[in-house]
């Protein structure tokens, strides 16, 4: 099977229709040529608001995970810095989190610790499959030429913090305190919200969120956290460029059998530069509190649905598809090939039809043992979750826009997704 290796950098795929040629009968007016179809996917070339986005095995040998490099500096310093690759791009979370073991000791000790009085602030970042526990520190975060100055980030599993992990954090799952457990060197949460917790944490010390952890290692206590101190989506702080209202994930299509590596672009801003306009994309607004929208599939509504670059497959409910058995190569993913259709509905009543294919995961993984980008990888989710998760596979071959709450764009106010 032919493998396409996509060169990094300029990837512009423009499909222009040939004008209708040709003759006309004498006496008949020539019909005007049909308009050209809209251009196919255009992936941004290098630029100040463009970061190279790579799908490969990454630091933890994962599939369908897209990575960027991020430069983290001591606030105000141009020299106490570190450029870290293998940072997962995640439109399903909000904020930058880095595994402590990845940071150089010099940088780790130079990042100012967020404190209340003299008591450090430490955070629990919950995921469905575990949690990240670690202090909130401030940093300058630079991605391509975009810079977020002095923003709160989370350093996961910082060895300087020996307090017992509070049970309302640790009991959501296992601690993801290593690169291997976490699946990446860190995660860049660029989803549709500006802060990771939001207004709920401002007035209430919610379990499983922010804590005050004494330096003597004694028990931590739950705390409230003002919005401007919460771990934040770096994009909203790219104030010098004004590319603060959202991101575009741009990844080319892949062959059905998968690709060993894939290169695209993470573009900052929507309609703020010449390379980030909405073009012909359709805007689907989401619920303003949850960032979720409705998907109809097989006659059922799934109101808690989303597009998510941080999901390694398309996860949805389909009892007609079998799941690969434990112990097989594709264990946990769908094992039945199918061509399927769903419709996505924005709160604004705009709709998009999604045509997608699922293939046998065990066959895919066995046939392409070095593959990392699989467009037809699907997995199950119970109907009770009311969720259709269009993960990274659905991002291949289309530019997906995520607009941030409270920020205006030419397509309207975020939060929304568009493609």
């Amino acid at each position, binding site marked *: 099977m032919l493998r396409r290796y996509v060169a990094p950098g300029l990837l512009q795929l423009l499909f222009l229709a040939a004008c209708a040629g040709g003759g006309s009968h004498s006496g008949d007016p020539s019909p005007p040529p049909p308009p050209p179809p809209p251009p196919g996917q255009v992936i941004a070339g290098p630029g100040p608001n463009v970061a190279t986005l790579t799908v490969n095995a990454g630091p933890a040998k994962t599939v369908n995970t897209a990575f960027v490099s991020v430069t983290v500096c001591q606030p105000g310093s141009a020299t106490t810095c570190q450029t870290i690759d293998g940072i997962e791009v995640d439109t*399903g979370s909000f904020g930058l989190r880095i595994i402590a073991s990845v940071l150089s000791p010099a940088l780790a000790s130079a990042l100012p610790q967020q404190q209340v009085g003299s008591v450090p602030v430490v955070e629990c970042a919950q995921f469905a499959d575990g949690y990240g526990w670690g202090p909130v520190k401030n940093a300058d975060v630079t991605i391509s030429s975009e810079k977020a100055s002095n923003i709160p980030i989370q350093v996961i599993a910082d060895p300087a913090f020996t307090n017992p992990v509070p049970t309302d954090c640790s009991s959501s799952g296992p601690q993801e305190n290593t690169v291997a457990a976490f699946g990446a060197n860190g995660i860049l949460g660029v989803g549709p919200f500006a802060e990771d917790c939001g207004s709920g944490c401002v007035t209430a010390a919610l379990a499983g969120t922010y804590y005050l952890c004494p330096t003597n290692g004694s028990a931590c206590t739950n705390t409230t956290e003002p919005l401007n101190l919460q771990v934040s989506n770096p994009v909203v702080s790219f104030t010098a460029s004004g590319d603060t209202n959202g991101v575009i994930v741009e990844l080319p299509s892949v062959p059905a059998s998968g690709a060993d590596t894939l290169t695209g672009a993470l573009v900052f801003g929507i309609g703020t530069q010449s390379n980030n306009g909405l073009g012909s994309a359709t805007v689907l607004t989401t619920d303003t509190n949850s960032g979720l929208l409705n998907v109809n599939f097989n006659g059922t509504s799934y109101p808690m649905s989303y597009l998510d670059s941080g999901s390694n497959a398309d996860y949805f409910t389909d009892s007609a598809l079998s799941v690969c058995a434990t112990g097989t190569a594709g264990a946990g993913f769908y094992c039945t090939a199918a061509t399927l259709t769903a419709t996505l509905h924005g709160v604004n009543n705009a709709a998009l039809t999604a045509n997608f294919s699922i293939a046998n995961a065990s066959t895919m993984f066995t046939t392409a043992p070095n593959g990392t980008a699989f467009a037809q990888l699907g997995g199950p989710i119970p109907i*009770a979750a009311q969720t259709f998760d269009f993960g990274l596979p659905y991002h291949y071959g289309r530019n997906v826009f995520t607009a941030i709450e409270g920020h205006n764009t030419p397509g309207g106010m975020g939060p929304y997704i568009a493609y």
Partner: protein
Amino acid sequence: MSISICSNVRAPLRALVVAGLALSACARAIAALGGDAASVEADRVSMKGQARGSAVSGFEVREIATSAGTLVREYLSPDGTVFAVSWRGPVIPDLRRILGAYYARYAQAVSAPHAGSHRHLTIEQPGLVVQSHGRMRAFFGRAWDPGLLPQNFSVDDIT
């Protein structure tokens, strides 16, 4: 865990927080998977939680709102055993409380490599099924013991 459950589940979050100090004395542990009806009934009275379901359908559901605004449901069989639990909300609740004696088995199973990435997790064992899904601000999960399910019960009813 600060489960301020001594109020009607419809109370706005602010009211739960304002009342938190006064109510801490009556906070009760959530009845865990495998727990019994007596503890749930005590919880329900003090929690003013909603009960839905009926004897005809063969099970009963109790709802509890945690201080973070997550809704926890406990499913009881006619003999008064909690055979399933579910949660839905911005924060995953304390699964040590919710899963009770099943937590150790869950913790061990989750530590093994799994397919789901940060958004999805499924544990399927003969005596325990756990499904955890979602992202920051929107989590959903459920757990049950297949051996405790009532007759003619569909797991699709665990919501």
